């Protein structure tokens, strides 16, 4: 396995603010690697450290084995797709895409030919003569992608590239990015705060919180085996049970997570854990209903299928019910 990007104990401080705090990651060549986290968690700073817009305060960043810390962006074999595209407003689309080739001294006929191919790759072959201002958000997004890809980077950095698009377009672009990644076989490093996006596209996801990495794992493991309560809560929804209630249920106060879809209404199952509570709220979601149950002062969420439980069979607000789940579904979290 060739390592594309490697962070060793990288920190980035702004005065006393730790934007990135002792981060160590290693991204393999050809991997679709996502950095997920809320805003201000350090994920974008990490991306900018790879691109070279920021320099680390401590630690080493290697790109294909070569130390990158201290080198400027124009000497790195990576290209970035910016959050707000950063297309050059005074150049037409063709010149925007060919820019990277022009500044590297590639002759115009050759660079325009390659720019045209890149534009065709993102289905914008006809738009070369337009100015960025004349394009829609989705089209600008594709131009930004073509402008980065035409340079044939070994690592493509994407900084929340779909953030400004509407839902339908976003889903379509997710598919296209995934297809593109499979076709090109280069490393994608993708920054997002949208856990759905990260889970559906990535080979691996790093979850960031307050400048640190909470967990790096495959999407499935991240969801089924979160290591910390932050990950359990940020990736999907989860009931995180700690303190007194955890003591009541498991006999010790180590916190644990249980997903809403794994909680059932107790009938007669064996080998389950049980708790008593009172229905506090019911939210209808179409195929499912979300039931909020107050248990010892804490609200637990559970999901009931509306095809399995008819309206009459469903509990009512204020009703006392017993919840249960199988012990194997519980995920113990770090304290």
């Amino acid at each position: 396995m060739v390592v594309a990007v490697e962070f060793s104990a990288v920190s980035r401080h702004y005065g006393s603010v730790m934007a990135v705090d002792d981060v160590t990651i290693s991204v393999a060549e050809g991997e679709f690697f996502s950095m997920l986290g809320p805003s201000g968690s350090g994920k974008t700073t990490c991306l900018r450290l790879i691109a070279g817009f920021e320099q680390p305060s401590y630690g080493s960043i290697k790109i294909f084995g070569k130390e990158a810390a201290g080198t400027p962006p124009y000497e790195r074999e990576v290209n970035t797709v910016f959050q707000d595209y950063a297309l050059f407003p005074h150049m037409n689309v063709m010149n925007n895409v060919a820019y990277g080739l022009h500044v590297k001294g590639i002759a115009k006929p050759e660079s325009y030919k390659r720019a045209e191919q890149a534009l065709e790759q993102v289905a914008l072959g006809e738009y070369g003569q337009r100015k960025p201002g004349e394009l829609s958000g989705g089209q600008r997004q594709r131009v930004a992608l073509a402008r980065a890809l035409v340079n044939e980077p070994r690592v493509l950095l994407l900084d929340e590239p779909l953030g400004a698009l509407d839902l339908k377009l976003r889903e379509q672009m997710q598919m296209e990015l995934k297809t593109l990644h499979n076709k090109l076989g280069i490393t994608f490093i993708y920054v997002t705060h949208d856990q759905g996006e990260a889970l559906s596209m990535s080979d691996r996801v790093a979850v960031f919180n307050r400048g640190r990495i909470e967990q790096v794992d495959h999407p499935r493991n991240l969801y089924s085996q979160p290591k910390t309560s932050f990950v359990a809560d940020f990736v999907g929804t989860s009931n995180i049970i700690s303190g007194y209630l955890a003591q009541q249920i498991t006999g010790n106060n180590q916190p644990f997570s249980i997903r809403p879809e794994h909680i059932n209404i107790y009938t007669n199952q064996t080998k389950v854990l049980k708790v008593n509570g009172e229905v506090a709220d019911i939210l209808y979601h179409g195929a499912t209903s979300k039931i909020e149950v107050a248990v010892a002062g804490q609200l637990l969420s559970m999901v009931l299928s509306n095809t399995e439980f008819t309206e009459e069979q469903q509990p009512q607000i204020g009703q006392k019910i017993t919840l249960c789940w199988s012990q194997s579904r519980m995920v113990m979290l770090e304290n």
Partner: protein
Amino acid sequence: MQSASNALPTANPLLRWFGNTLFRKNNLLLFLLLTPPLLWFGVVYLGSLFALLWQSFYTFDSFSMAVSHDLTLENYRSLFDATNLDIILRTLSMAIAVTLACAVIAFPIAYYMTRYGSHAEKGFFYIAVMLPMWASYIVKTYAWTVILSQQGILYWLFNHLGLGSTLNHVLQLPIIGGNTLATSNLGRFIVFTYIWLPFMILPIQAALERVPTNLLQASADLGARPAQTFRNILFPLVFPGVVAGSIFTFSLTLGDYIIPQLIGPSGLYIGTMVYTMQGSVGNMPLAAAFTVVPIVLIFIYLSLARRAGAFDAF
């Protein structure tokens, strides 16, 4: 029943009718708002300009020193006489030199203000740039006559640095030189550049402020070295600001009549020529014709700037 506090204010019915009419007819409001400034602009500003233009076609009898209302192109033809053409070229070359110098000096200052200055530093720079504009222009020019004189601080500084002879060598150069700094074209150039510099810094700074940082980062990301980023991205995007500033420095130098009188060698400028012609000589038609020269030059300059793409960046 409606309580008193909820009721609409009972205005004078006439006022209310007027207000409602304005609300419905937007164009009427626009008309009322724009009429006074348009009248001012049309009558006072353009009117006087046209009156001036018209007078440039009057005939001046150099024997009787009287102006007659016979229309002639003679004033414009005489602009191309050797002495008059000399005045125009002298003024034009100074205007170009001052504009270039202002642009070269202003850009780094504006760039520092925009990209690196902290909030406090920015404030300091704004005041430092604007402060000289609070002082009277004439006072500043007189101050420079003292600074540039042989007993002045510049000579003192050069002598103490042991560069006195270098300065004298520079002053012996043709065109820019002269007997002293205060009577040389170099001195005049320094004063012009100093006086008009703020008018160049502020538009460039405003233009730089509008260039998003991520465009420069995108350029570097795509492999452009800093010089390439400057040439391909930053300069084209800031160029309208440079042009805006240069319109000030260029036209203000073309029209100035104080600095050429107080500093530098003898020899008339367009401004001093107009001043002399309409004042002591009373040749209003030629003065008017001379006034048209800067207008035409600015016009040519703007169309060149437009062709260079100064106005299609955004």
